[in-house]
């Protein structure tokens, strides 16, 4: 810390009024900000993240990440294992709240409101920011009940017919309707892996979220099921904003418009997907996408 203060002596003088801790914090951020290469802002953002730090106990997992999630865009987050991309994704709908020792600082805004504001209700946040997980996790209930669960707890349907409509629409959007329309009362856990994952997507979109977070949605699926999900993601982009974490660079290249590369908890580079994969600006990004490590 001493070193940083020395390097930024001028800044320290300007911030006389602030407490030492605050100064240290800002200096650390100044120091880190330079690391992200590329355009982290977009013209039409759906979510705005600024200076996000995440700590697990004493250990810091995310360092000063600032990133915009563009509206009706797919943003892919790539990087080697343990780089913090999933952790960052889970900040966007406060799934990290379930971990006791996890602490998030910085600002994440949606509709000009800080989602970590204590006045904001996390239930309503998760209704507008849905999530699809790595392992398909349908409830051990019928296909119908799986999709109906969200609308039911949020009181979205006025009548049974309305609920049926919501479920049909959601399953249609998830591309699953034709496969399951005759067996809605059968358990969701009886479907194949790819179908289960699409059921989870249908469950997520049944509450009409604006943003869908996907945490490696295809890592447990075979190539055919993966292709279907990727196709689906491309279709969903029309109506939803999607943030996807993936280990597969080909997948990121296929489905996303923007790509963010994470390394050791830091956001190294972010930009148009084409640019990232054809002309990476940062050495680490280049090494990663050319397969030199990861």
């Amino acid at each position, binding site marked *: 810390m001493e070193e940083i203060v020395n390097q930024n002596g001028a800044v320290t003088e300007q911030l006389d009024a602030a407490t030492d801790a605050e100064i240290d914090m800002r200096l650390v951020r100044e120091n880190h900000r330079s690391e992200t290469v590329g355009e982290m802002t977009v013209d039409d953002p759906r979510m705005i993240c600024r200076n996000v730090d995440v700590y697990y106990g004493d250990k810091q997992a995310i360092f000063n990440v600032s990133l915009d999630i563009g509206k009706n865009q797919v943003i892919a987050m790539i990087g080697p294992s343990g780089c913090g991309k999933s952790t960052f994704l889970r900040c966007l*709908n406060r*799934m990290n709240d*379930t971990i*006791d020792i996890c602490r998030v600082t910085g600002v994440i805004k949606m509709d000009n409101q800080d989602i970590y504001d204590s006045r904001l209700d996390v*239930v*309503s*946040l*998760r*209704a507008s920011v*849905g*999530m*699809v*997980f790595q*392992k398909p*996790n*349908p*409830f*051990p209930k019928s296909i119908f009940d799986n999709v109906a*669960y*969200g609308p039911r*707890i*949020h009181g979205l349907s006025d009548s049974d017919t309305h609920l049926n409509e919501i479920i049909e629409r959601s399953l249609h959007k998830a591309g699953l309707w034709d496969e399951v329309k005759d067996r809605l009362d059968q358990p969701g856990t009886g479907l194949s892996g790819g179908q289960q994952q699409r059921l*989870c997507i249908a*469950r*997520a979109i*049944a*509450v009409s979220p604006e943003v869908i977070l996907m945490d490696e949605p295809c890592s447990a699926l075979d190539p055919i099921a993966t292709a279907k999900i990727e196709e689906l993601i491309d279709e969903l982009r029309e109506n939803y904003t999607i943030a996807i974490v993936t280990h597969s660079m080909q997948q990121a290249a296929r489905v996303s418009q923007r790509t963010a590369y994470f390394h050791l908890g830091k956001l190294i580079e972010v930009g148009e997907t084409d640019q990232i994969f054809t002309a990476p600006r940062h050495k680490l990004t280049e090494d990663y996408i050319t397969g030199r490590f990861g």
Partner: protein
Amino acid sequence: MNNLQQHNDTMARVQQGLNQRYRNEKRFRRVGLSAIMSGLIFVSFLFITIFANGYTAFQQTYLKLDVVFDPALIAPLGMTDPDILSAANYGGLVKAAMREMFPSVTSRREKKTLYKLVSTGAVYQLREMVMLDPALIGTKKSVWLVADDDVDMLIKEHIDLNAVESDRRIKNNQLEWIRLLQKNGRVEKRFNSTFFTAGDSREPELSGIKGAVYGSFFTLLICLAIAFPVGVAAAVYLEEFASKNRWTDLIEVNINNLAAVPSIVFGLLGLAVFINFFGLPRSVPLVGGLVLALMTLPTIIIASRAALKSVPPSIREAALGVGASPMQTVTHHVLPLAMPGMLTGTIIGMAQALGETAPLLMIGMVAFIVDIPGGPFDPSAVLPVQVYLWADSPERAFVERTSAAIMVLLAFLISMNLLAVWLRKKFERRW
């Protein structure tokens, strides 16, 4: 060449070691098998002894007497009020019937021993008959009356007739009379329904386990009503809501310790708190249930926490991900999935509570209670305490009743455990 030699050498050594390995494996299997066999032998020895000792208790000896329902003894003035009928001298009827059958018995002492062949319960049997049907008065009827427990033991051949007369419960003259009755077909072993319909009694032939079964039922009901909700709530809170810190660690260690506390300590606690401090009555299933609930709580909490832990976190994430509150996540998804495990743990805990004796001794449930309890506030015994009480009684006939009561207790325990196994199998889920 050198390589081949080395290879052969290695193979030879492997072969050598291989035999040793197989021998070790065989020995290990034999040890395991013999451990299980010896366990099975002990268990079957237990079951065989109890069954051999107890099965005779399900039969009871009856004597057929020609009873004259003498109006002079029952309703002297021709009055058939229930009050008068219930207070009448039915013992006189029995005695008269006995005298008539053995006219040769004249001395006062001999008569007394003669009367002893029939149980004192015969009086109630006759009274019930007359109360039900007053038209019997004035008629003569053959009635099967309960024999005394000593006669019963003689018929079941539990009395050593080679012993000196003064050491025997059945004297020579009684033996003679019984043989005569047997010859006339007036002695019969019948199904002992009294054992299932009566409470405790000083007379073995009149005692039954209904009171103890009811007492156990009410006790377990109270125990379940308290331990299950409290245990499940505690487990859910600790597992799903409480933050993991030093306090919850401390609580967890203490719960595990409580599960190992000797049960009599819980009895003392119940005595001090429920009876002395709160002034609840002694010997009642309410207090018994409260004490057993304290004792069962750790078992239920530990089993419930294990059941909650076995619900995969992905289900919680799925529910939270669509915007369910933590409470909804638990009540809609986690709890229903953990319920079979919780029920299994609870049933095992209940079975443990059903067999528990020591803490109930401390709160006075060891009293001699004849009446069948009508609710959790009536004094009563419980099955294991009934076993304890009968095992302590000197009469030979209580030996078989002790074993019979153990059989009933074991039947309840086994069926409860089977229910737990069935629940586990039926609702078992794999992810």
